[in-house]
Every structure is written in C-alpha cells, then in structure tokens.
C-alpha cells in the first residue's frame, strides 16, 4: 500500500514538474524559425530587463507555418505574440483575431521612425495591428558556375521573358536539370503567388488601370480572367510543360533547405525568389554564412524582366515582409506590448537587419551608417524604388490559394483555358459574381 502511495505521489510530482515551465511562463510568442535571431535576442533582452518574467518560445518551421497560425488564432489558443506574414494582417484583423496597437504605439518613442507606407500593410480599417520586421524585393537569382558552364553572359540582364527562357534552355542543354525554378503549386504556398505568379503578371499587362494585377483596387473587384493572367499561366506552361525547363516536384519538397542547397550546388540554374536569399540561401539566422565576397562568387541576381511587349513594365517588383502582432485574446496586452517593443528596440532590430541583410522598415535604421554601408542593401533598395504591394484586403488569402491551385493545375498539364475557367469559377464561389470581373 505504502509502495502504491509512493508511486502515485511520484507520478503526481512528475506531472506537476512537467507542467511547471508552461505555468511559469508569463508570455508566449509564436514565430517562424527564419526570424529566430530577431525574436530570441529580443526575448533575452526583455527577460533581462524584467527579472522574474519568462517567455515561452513557440518556434515553428516555415513549411506549414501559416496553416498553424490560422488554426491557433481561430481556435483561440494562439500565443500572446504571433509572427504574421504581412499579407495576412488584414485577413486576421478582419476576423477580430488581432489587437489594434494604436493607443499603445502612441506611448512608444521609437514608433515615429516607421515608414507610413510600410505600416499600411500592417493596418486594417485605419488601425495598426502589427509591426513590420522588414520589407523585401524580388528578383531572379542565378548560379554563376552554371552560367559559365552554359556559356551565358554574367552579369546577366535579360530584357524579356524570352531572354530568360532562352537562357534556361541553354542551361538545360548544358545539363542543369532544373534550369528555371518559378515557385508553383500549393505546397510552395505564398511563394508561388508572390515570387512567381505576381512577379510575372506585373510585367504581362499594362501597368495602367490594374490590368496587370489580381484585383481592380478602385472597384473592389477581383479579376477572374485577363490577358495578363493568361500570359502568366502560359509562361508557367512553357517552363513546366512545353519546354520542361523546371522540375515540378522541386516545389513539393519535404525540406525547402534542400532546394537552396540544390541551387548552390548548381542543380537549379535560375531561381525566382527575393532579397532575403542573400543570407537565407545559406541560413536565415546568419549561422555559417560565408562572407559577402564569397557569396557573390557563387550566386548573383538580376531584376525580373517584363514580357517585352511595348507599354508593359521593363522590370517588375512586388514587396512583402513579415510582422509581429498581438493576439486579441492576450490576457495582458500591456505586458505583451512591452515584449513587442523589446524585440523592435533599435539596437536589437538594427543588429538583426544589418547582419541578415534585411531591408529596413524604419528611417532611424535605414539611415544608420551600418546599414547604408551595406552594398547588397544599397542595390536592393534601388530596386525598391519601383515596387508595389499585394492586394492586402480580407479575402486575398483565398485568392492567393486559388492562384497556387492554378499553378498546380499547370504542373498537372492542364490547358491555360481550363485553368483560367476554374480560377474564375473559384473566385465567383468565394466572392459572388458581382465581385469578379473579366478584363478583355
């Protein structure tokens, strides 16, 4: 009997001990592991400045991150602070999942440095719901050894899609299996929409009147069919089906770090991605990243060209970025905000921005000598002069999912006509026929 009681007591103690760290944590934060350096150093500073307070770190891989966050928020079990891709801020704020920050931001002396335009993506109905971590630009990265092997010029400055297709063909002929990787399909998630589809579409139609976008912004309508959408899907079709310049399964890999490695090893010739790759191709958190000079020997980048038709853009760009928000259900908003400002405190934020070669979202950081001295950032910032943003209104996430499905359908070999019809009908299901237009 005594033995049984002892066992029961031991089990109870073990269970309580297991629960202790969870009970002791005062705050929790959920974040994408590619931002670990920013978040974890900020948390360290917060804990040092607030003795006795403990922050529970919920670090998640990038693959499937958004599904998890959406589920946590909708079920009401989200941590106090949540890292959110900027395009989802309006979607989540519109669902009442996030806390408006305006009142608290007024009392924070560093808020004045945030660029107004960049706060727009973190706002909904005139209120700020999150603070941006960085912004970005998008481009075509290429492997320099592959280009030398295929006898292609380097530096490379393609002027049209045909130039890129011709280069990819030469790379393929020279033995590069995945000559041009344009993100596609449902597993690549937002990358398929942003790094691939939108970058191409912005150069596939006239830049006036939103004919090269997913949405007619002034009319608040989504575009179900347009020449730009068709031309973009046709480009995917040429790359993945007609000319087989890309390998579809690379968009469905178990481990996207392997894709970066394949690119560095020369198995991928051209990769459509963004400015973060200057560090993320090796490690987003800066672990064992070679010097800039060594990186420049391996890879280089060029702006995405337009499709070459007169009147269209000669180069395209679209910017996104990530943010950190506070859950509407955070029990202690003031303390959560304290942690948020500890993460975005100038020293921590500047260190992370400069060491990770991220594009600054604050004027005090953008004008800091450590930032202005970075040659990569200077060049990327040049590209940011002509950029645009996503259609970040509630509902965009659904449209983006339909775009991803459309690119997946192209990988399956479906015709552009069929894919466009399905895309259009999907939009009508979601928003109603009066909210969907066709551009001739």
């Amino acid at each position: 009997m005594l033995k049984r009681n002892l066992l029961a007591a031991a089990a109870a103690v073990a269970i309580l001990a297991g629960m202790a760290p969870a009970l002791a944590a005062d705050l929790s934060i959920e974040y994408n592991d590619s931002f670990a350096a920013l978040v974890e150093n900020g948390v360290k500073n917060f804990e040092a400045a607030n003795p006795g307070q403990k922050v529970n770190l919920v670090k998640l891989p990038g693959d499937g991150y958004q599904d998890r966050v959406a589920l946590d928020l909708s079920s009401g079990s989200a941590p106090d602070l949540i890292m959110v891709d900027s395009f989802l801020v309006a979607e989540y704020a519109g669902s009442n999942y996030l806390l408006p920050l305006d009142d608290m931001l007024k009392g924070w002396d560093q808020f004045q440095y945030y660029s107004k335009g960049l706060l727009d993506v973190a706002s909904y109905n005139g209120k700020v719901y999150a603070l941006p971590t960085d912004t970005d630009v998008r481009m075509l990265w290429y492997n320099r050894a592959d280009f030398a092997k295929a006898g292609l010029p380097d530096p490379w400055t393609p002027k049209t899609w045909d130039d890129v297709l011709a280069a990819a063909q030469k790379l393929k002929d020279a033995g590069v299996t995945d000559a041009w990787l344009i993100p596609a399909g449902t597993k690549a998630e937002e990358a398929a929409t942003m790094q691939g589809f939108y970058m191409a579409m912005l150069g596939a139609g006239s830049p006036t009147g939103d004919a090269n976008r997913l949405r007619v912004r002034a009319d608040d309508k989504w575009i179900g069919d347009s020449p730009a959408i068709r031309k973009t899907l046709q480009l995917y079709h040429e790359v993945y089906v007609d000319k087989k310049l890309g390998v579809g399964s690379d968009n469905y890999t178990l481990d996207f770090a392997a894709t970066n490695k394949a690119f560095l090893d020369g198995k991928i010739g051209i990769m459509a991605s963004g400015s973060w790759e200057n560090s993320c191709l090796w490690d987003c958190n800066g672990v064992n990243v070679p010097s800039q000079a060594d990186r420049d020997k391996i890879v280089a980048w060029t702006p995405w060209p337009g499709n070459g038709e007169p009147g269209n853009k000669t180069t395209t760009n679209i910017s996104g970025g990530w943010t950190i928000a506070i859950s509407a259900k955070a029990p202690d908003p003031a303390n959560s905000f304290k942690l948020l400002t500890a993460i975005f405190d100038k020293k921590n934020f500047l260190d992370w921005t400069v060491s990770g070669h991220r594009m600054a979202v604050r004027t005090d950081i953008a004008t800091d000598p450590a930032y202005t001295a970075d040659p990569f950032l200077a060049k990327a910032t040049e590209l940011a002069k002509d950029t645009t943003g996503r259609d970040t209104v509630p509902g965009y996430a659904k449209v983006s999912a339909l775009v991803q499905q459309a690119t997946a359908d192209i990988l399956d070999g479906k015709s552009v006509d069929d894919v466009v019809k399905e895309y259009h009908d999907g939009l009508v299901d979601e928003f109603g026929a009066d909210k969907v237009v066709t551009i001739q």
Partner: protein
Amino acid sequence: MASQTSPWLRSARGPMFVAMLPAIVLIVALIYFTGWAVTYSFTNLELTGPNSLNWKWIGVDNYVRLFTRQGFLSSLWVTVIFTFFSAIVGQSVFGFVLAAAMRGLRGWGRTCVEVALMLGWLLPDIVAAFLWQATTTDIGFVNTLILQPLGFPPYDFLANYALVVVIVANIWKGTAWSYLLFSAALDSISREILEAAKVDGATGLQRTWLVTLPIIRPHIATNMLFITIWTFTYFALIYALTGGGPGSSTEVLSIFMYHQSFGVGKLGYGAAISIAMVLIVGVLSVFYLRQLKEPK
C-alpha cells in the same frame, strides 16, 4: 416489462447510471463532432476573413461543388488508385504470400523477415518519408548505389513517378499488419485438413485456392476492412513525402481536405469533403462486413 427486471438491477439504478456515464460522454462526444462536421458542411464558414465571423447557410452548395469544381473527383480517383494498389493488392497480397512462405519456416530466416517488416511498420511516418525521399530522388540511394554504378544517368523517380513511389512506400510500411494477421490465420488451419487435401491429389495451388482461402475468408475480410479504412484516410506519409504533388498527382482525399480546410481556409467545404469520405468508407465497410458472414 418492469416486472421482468431483476430486483437487484432495480435497486441499483443510481450506481448503474454513474457507471454508464463515461460511455454516455463518449457517445455524445462522437455524435457532437460528427454533427459539427455535418452542420458546417452546409455553411460557408471559413478559418479566417469575413466568412469566419458572418458565415451563412448555403444549402447543398458545398456538396454540389464536390462534383462541379475540379479537385474532389480527381482526388477521389487518386485515392482509389492509391488504396487499391497499395493496400488491397500490395499489402494484402504481399502480406499473404509472405505469411504463406514463412509458415513452415523457423529460426533466423523468419526472424529477419519479421523484424524487417515490423521496422517498416513501427517507423514514424515522417521518418519514413525522409527515408523514401532520400532513396528515390535523383541524388538518392537508388541512383547513387545502383543506377549510376551501372552506367545509367541519374533519374528522379519521385519527380516523375510520385504516385508509384508513394504506393510502394505504403506497401513497405503497411505489409506487417497483413502479414501478422494472415500468419495467425494460417496457423489456425489444422494440418490434417491440408494433408487430407494433399492425399486426395490437390496441387499446391488448388490447396491454397480451394482449402486455405475459404477457411481464412473472414480474416481476409477483416484485414481488408482495416487496411481499406486506414489507407483511404491516410495522410502523414504522403503529405510529408510529396505534399500532394507534383501538381495534384498524389493529392489523396485526406490531403485535399486538409488543404481546402486549413490551407485555403474553407472549413465548410472541408467538412463536406470529410462527410463524403465518411460515406465512401462507410459503403466499403458495409461491403466487407457482408463478406465477413459465413456463406450459407
């Protein structure tokens, strides 16, 4: 009626009700979750965005979309191929053949085969997915250890034959169950019957077809019932190995449902897909359960 109840039971209604509580809670929970899925399958409820707050009843629209929008039917077809070849043909036949071959065997040979089978079964799905990816890509073991030494150029099996790779991986993973079940079934057949058939002049094939299989018929049906349900709703290995791709080539219904519910965020549509899956598995189960009955 009351007079037939034993006095002991009548006096113990209170304690009996208390004893029944866990079962009642379980049944209510089961009905609640199924009811939840059925209810929301008639709405446009979404995970995020305006429809997460102001969802509407949309009648049978979600069910109509199963047939009018692409995705469900093609995904159902992929699921049928996956289930038929990996479970019904692969695991079941392979499991039976192995069980029959190992029947008379004792010692190291049998132990090695059983350990190998069990390892596949016991390995977590995600680990298995990594292994299969490491085996079948153009830089995988099959290429580096077999094809390239023989002078063949590297070939990416996962990119070009994703569904076949997933089917083979699932046969490898799930054969242990069928093997164990058939081993036990075969052990239950008395040697006298088989020897009598042999004396009567039945060949090996005839003994299997006319004696063994009819005797273990209920076991076959039980095995089919289990592996069909498991395979029809299987998710982890396929999702980790291919994510449903490339394109939609390995997008089985469970992945399609997951993607629609949590990737796109259409909980209502996802619920309709899940109800359709329940119905399909239900029909298959009824078919197998009928097979379980002894022929008259």
